[in-house]
């Protein structure tokens, strides 16, 4: 018999993340590097342990090797536990059936036994592609106090942007009476963050019913939530006010990285009470050469900077040679930018090489949020000497 856990977290990390293009060709979206030394998934994993939830299933499906290896036994997040801890849960063959995860709800359905094993009262559903710091335990206490069957974390978004989100319409007590996916004429500004807490017995019932419906997409947003709402279950929104960003597109991934450089963005990674943990790669401190110029930038361990870096994120192990200029860009782990190369408004993938005098991206004065023309040099790609990569272009590895 396993030790009982009041709440088990289930992290949906199986999505392909097609909108990130070259960056997610070989790794799952949650494994994409972020902020110099992190991966996107570090935020949800760190939030989980910082919220005193020590049992988490990570549901993987698309390109799982890198993510599996990264999570390992969960030790970097203090999730290597005698009872509970971090578990990578890929789809598996069962006695009567065996299939891929068909949708977000189906992924949980296929792991009902995992949650049951810990006799959990509540299940926290998370996605691995958001950057934010949130105390899930506060949300859980809210869920319990409300006597809710389902609690959905929401953020207030500007009304003009509301039609890009799943919008929750609630009464004055935050009780949800209507859910609209990307409404043309939004009635509220409460956007779902894709973070749910369910009372497990209730969710289990709906998962089993949903599975029997062959026409269903087996999706939380499309099926489970509307079904529960129609049946009159107790569903509440939970207001979250801190920094939160979905990094599902190149432009939003770039923006979220740049938010680290903006003291007013609210992302604040330096909060010692809410550390973001990452797997460490044992690199020496970074070295800044004699001719280097670094201003308004993040530089991580193992880097060697001899050139000019402005408004940029230089990730661990990257090399910026003498005379290279990096502006408003993200250079991912172990990438090399050689002498005389210029990089503007770009993302340089891990292990990519920008040969000397190449020109990647172009400077942009200003853009509407989400619509930056970011040039992307995919992981392991080499940009030849003198080559020009246009703004908004995406270079990929051949195979």
């Amino acid at each position, binding site marked *: 018999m396993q030790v009982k856990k009041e709440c088990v977290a289930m992290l949906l990390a199986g999505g392909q993340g097609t909108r990130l293009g070259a960056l997610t060709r070989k790794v799952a979206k949650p494994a994409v590097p972020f902020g110099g030394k992190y991966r996107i998934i570090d935020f949800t994993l760190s939030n989980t342990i910082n919220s005193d939830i020590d049992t988490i299933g990570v549901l993987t499906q698309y390109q799982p090797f890198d993510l599996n290896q990264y999570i390992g036994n969960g030790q970097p997040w203090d999730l290597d536990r005698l009872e509970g801890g971090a578990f990578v849960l890929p789809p598996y063959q069962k006695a009567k059936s065996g299939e891929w995860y068909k949708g977000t709800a189906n992924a949980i359905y296929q792991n009902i036994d995992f949650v049951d094993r810990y006799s959990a009262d509540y299940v926290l559903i998370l996605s691995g592609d958001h950057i934010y710091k949130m105390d899930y335990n506060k949300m859980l206490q809210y869920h319990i106090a409300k006597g809710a069957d389902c609690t959905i974390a929401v953020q207030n978004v500007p009304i003009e942007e509301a039609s890009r989100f799943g919008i929750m319409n609630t009464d004055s007590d935050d009780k949800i009476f209507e859910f609209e996916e990307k409404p043309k004429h939004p009635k509220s500004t409460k956007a779902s963050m894709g973070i749910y807490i369910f009372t497990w017995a209730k969710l289990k019932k709906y998962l089993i019913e949903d599975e029997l419906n062959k026409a269903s997409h087996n999706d939380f947003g499309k099926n489970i939530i509307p079904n529960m709402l129609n049946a009159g279950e107790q569903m509440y929104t939970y207001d979250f006010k801190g920094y939160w960003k979905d990094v599902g597109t190149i432009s939003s991934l770039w923006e979220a990285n740049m938010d680290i450089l903006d003291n007013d963005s609210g992302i604040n990674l330096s909060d010692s009470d809410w550390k973001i943990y990452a797997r460490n790669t044992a690199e*020496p*401190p970074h070295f800044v050469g004699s001719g280097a110029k670094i201003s308004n930038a993040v530089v991580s361990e193992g880097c060697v900077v001899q050139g000019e870096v402005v408004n940029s994120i230089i990730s661990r192990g990257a090399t910026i040679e003498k005379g290279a200029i990096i502006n408003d860009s993200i250079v991912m782990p172990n990438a090399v930018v050689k002498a005389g190369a210029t990089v503007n408004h770009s993302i340089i993938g891990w292990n990519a090489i920008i040969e000397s005098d190449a020109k990647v991206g172009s400077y942009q004065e200003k853009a509407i949020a989400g619509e930056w023309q970011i040039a992307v040099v995919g992981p392991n790609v080499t940009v030849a000497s003198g080559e020009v990569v246009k703004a908004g272009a995406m270079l990929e590895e051949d195979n």
Partner: protein
Amino acid sequence: MNKKMMAILFASGNESKLNELTLHRTTASLPFAGRYRLIDFALSNFVNSGVTRIGIITRNNYSSLMDHIRMGRDWDLNRKNSGIAVFPPFGLNTSRDVYKGKIEALYTVLDFLEKAPEDYVCVSNSNIASNIELDAILEEHIARGADLTMLCHKANVTSSKRVIITKNEQDVVTDICQVEIPSTEEKLVSLNIYIVRKDLLVSWVEQAYARGYVDFEKDILFREVENGKIYAKEITTYAAIVDDVKTYYNQSMKVLNDDVRTELFETGRKVYTKVKDSVPTIYGNKASVSNSLIADGCVINGTVENSILFRDVRIEEGAVVKNSIIMEHGVVMKGGQIGYTITDKSVVIGANRQISGSEDYPIVIVKNKKV
């Protein structure tokens, strides 16, 4: 992987010559090169050479060391079999004080040595920063049929007590002497890292202890030289022996050299240390940094030249740091200026304060001090 060799590491030594820097710690836990402690280099060399049974002998002020090492997980040394064994000061019933020298210290861990299945031991001080392939040296040691191999390097004996080796063309050690007087001449200096057959070490220590000997080098190695089976192995890459403030400063500054960093860090044999989950370093609009080694977690908005910043250091706008070493959690406030200064952990240099030592005599500011 070799299961042939175990290790004994001495965590203490020369604390008196490091003055303020070792008031609160052993030499082994002295911060070095931005994010390490000296012992990290020895531990990483062991792990990278497949040596996983490591006894650490401590004498004093070892709580910072225990805190650093914990269960050894950061070096992958939290093993079911083998791993790290820390030996706190152990007073034998027959003597009132803790051990006086290496012979007595080794005598107290004979049991640990004898019970271990390994046939060879690496006996090492922990004040050496170097990236050494011990497994290859062990193979050479075995092939030569050596009793003991002394690791050494060519260096100027500029300070402190050093063991000088003379060897013949076959690398057999022909003489050992201890030098107290500095000279500018380049000599073959012992790194105080030895590889030795275990059964031999045990019998040497038993016999020496019985005769009341104290000094491992003088009372054992010097006597064994005449048997012609003590070999010298020269390390030609960067190797720093840190045993006083001046060598600490000079050897630290050498790490700013590209070749030295390559020899220490780019060998494919990583140097591990305690993971602290600091955020990457953030540079502000007013930052101006050159020729410096910067660890994670710093916030820099001033000028930093020819310096080493450890983790979580803050350099405020208008502050100027030159030729200095600032350890963890140090702060130089607005307009503060320091040169040729070593600030220990959590030192705060107040706004507009100016402190300057010289290259020969860097100023040391003790832990937690607010200037």
